């Protein structure tokens, strides 16, 4: 507090936005105030994320707030820098309120000295004042270097604040890393925060399953992300609701299926499990073996609706039928059965 000049800002450190509105960012002007604000914030949750850490930061006298971001523009297949003279709120909000202030500059493929000049010229339109431009150029350049060095998908400084003394300060920042790039950055992998995921999502990740928790009653196990999403859509279009997104992946190690079934069956809201497999590399008999093993090893109290088609389909279906389970070949039929089940048990 002393080194910060007797005043400070206490900020909740959670992986979500809207902290200010939730009261999780407080200005304080004494050690006592700082202690009580910090302990209050530490007992809060912001959008369901419990606050475990606070940051004690310098209190700035802010004159203006800008937005600066680096991201990949999928349509032009390039890294772009985005700057807005309106900052401090979500970029989506800026886009809605002051879209004319959002400007883009293509960064990729240009790493020579000309970039610096072109970037300065581009930034001058947003920052106008020469002293600010001189600070903004290295700021954006460094953000770009970080973006490339650490395989980011977003580096955002918001607000990029101008103090009353004319100093440009990164008052807050957000970085999103490319999931495909993390493998080459063990330092970033170590930063992974388990609180970002539900317990089920964490276990699924360890098992090599792609899983997202949702709020419905039909547990889904599907092979392939596109088919998994489409299965959720068909559930919705037939009047049901999915409890999760789950892609068991291309190869169907029976143990993966067991883990998937186990994760699904723990969900208290669950009324039915829907298995939708289109076998290609995935073999239907492997999936069937996994389902049967899961039923033996774990208590599964809900009905299981199974759709199996493709590689080794006859073998898989036979195994399941002999165990008293019913199997269908059509996705829409299976989804309809699952939706009926989910309603019948309500």
């Amino acid at each position: 507090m002393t080194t910060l000049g007797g005043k400070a800002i206490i900020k909740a450190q959670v992986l979500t936005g809207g902290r200010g509105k939730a009261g999780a960012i407080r200005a304080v002007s004494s050690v006592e105030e700082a202690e009580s604000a910090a302990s209050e914030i530490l007992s809060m949750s912001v959008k369901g994320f419990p606050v475990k850490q606070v940051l004690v930061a310098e209190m700035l006298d802010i004159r203006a707030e800008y937005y600066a971001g680096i991201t990949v523009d999928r349509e032009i297949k390039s890294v772009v820098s985005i700057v807005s003279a309106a900052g401090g709120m979500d970029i989506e909000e800026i886009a809605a309120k002051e879209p004319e202030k959002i400007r883009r500059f293509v960064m990729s493929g240009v790493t020579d000295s000309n970039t610096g000049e072109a970037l300065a010229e581009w930034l001058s339109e947003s920052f106008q004042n020469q002293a600010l431009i001189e600070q903004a150029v290295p700021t954006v350049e460094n953000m770009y270097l970080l973006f490339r060095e650490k395989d980011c998908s977003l580096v955002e400084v918001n607000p990029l604040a101008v103090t009353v003394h004319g100093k440009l300060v990164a008052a807050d920042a957000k970085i999103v890393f490319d999931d495909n790039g993390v493998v080459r950055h063990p330092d970033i992998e170590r930063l992974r925060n388990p609180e970002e995921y539900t317990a089920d999502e964490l276990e699924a990740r360890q098992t090599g399953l792609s899983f997202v928790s949702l709020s419905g009653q039909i547990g889904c196990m599907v092979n392939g992300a596109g088919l998994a999403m489409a299965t959720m859509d068909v559930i919705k279009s037939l009047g049901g609701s999915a409890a999760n997104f789950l892609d068991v992946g291309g190869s169907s190690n029976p143990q993966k299926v067991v883990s998937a079934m186990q994760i699904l069956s723990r969900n208290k809201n669950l009324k039915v499990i829907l298995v939708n497999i289109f076998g290609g590399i995935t073999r239907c008999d492997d999936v069937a073996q996994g389902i049967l093993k899961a039923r033996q090893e774990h208590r599964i109290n809900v009905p299981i609706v199974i759709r199996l088609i493709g590689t080794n389909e006859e073998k898989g279906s036979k195994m399941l039928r002999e165990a008293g389970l019913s199997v269908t070949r059509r996705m829409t039929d299976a989804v309809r059965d699952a939706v009926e089940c989910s309603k019948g048990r309500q």
Partner: protein
Amino acid sequence: MLKGETVTVSILVDKQTKVIVQGITGRDGSFHTRAMLDYGTQVVGGVTPGKGGQKVDTLDVFDNVKDAVGHTGARCSVVFVPAAFAPDAIREAAENGITLIVCITEGIPVLDMVDLYHELKDRSVRLIGPNCPGIISPGKCKVGIMPDHVHKTGGIGVISRSGTLTYEVVYDMSEKNLGQSTCVGIGGDPIVGTSYIDLLEMFENDDQTDAIVLIGEIGGEAEEKAASFINKSVSKKIVAFISGRSAPPGKRMGHAGAIISSGKGGAEAKVNALREAGVVVVDRPDQIAEALLAADSGRPMPMPNPLDSLGGNAGVT
């Protein structure tokens, strides 16, 4: 083959296409090499650095693409190389005479693809993928990993960002006797070598294709771009399905795309854009076949005028 059958050429690949497999000695590479050979694809060799001189099945393995191309005359390559090495494998193919590269590999970092995309742009090379099931022209050639038995020859061109969902749709179409001219998986990654637009243009100009199925999903705005292209330049009937209409916002949604396009990227925007372009967008995969069979689709089945060609090679990147 029937006697007197004329040789028909489909888009991208056909019976004459000579294919090499990069990563042929790997588990997936060797498995799918066999499957492609069984389908009748002219797989003529493979590449795995350090394993030149070995054999996979009946095929020679070379140390590099240059040797493989020199010995086999292949112009098409399918890449099964792990993500860490796949960009270099694609680069090597592009630099050594391969003009069509199909990259199956999943997990390539997006920044690698940004750099690669711009490198390839200036060469006469087409990249399909990455993270895609590949290309199949039923009855002629398969360069990829799709279960070929679900396919049937016919006149429907299929373009998709997904793998298994495409198999689902194709299976249903084939059961209802709607065969396919060519099916292309363009890949599920944020940055892919070939877009919907490139393929829409090819299918529009392909006289073996009567109608087109477009399978999209949430994220980015490739479907919106396709819609405006369709509006101006495609006269053939198109039926579309967009997956992820029930996916919650914020989860797995491409944040970058949402920022830049302000309001674009969700499923509804894609559905609306396609509908405005006259495309029939259905709610379930099994309605695609129905919509193709329906005589009245809201979009007239046109008589393509050969003089009305789209011209140039705007789609070739």
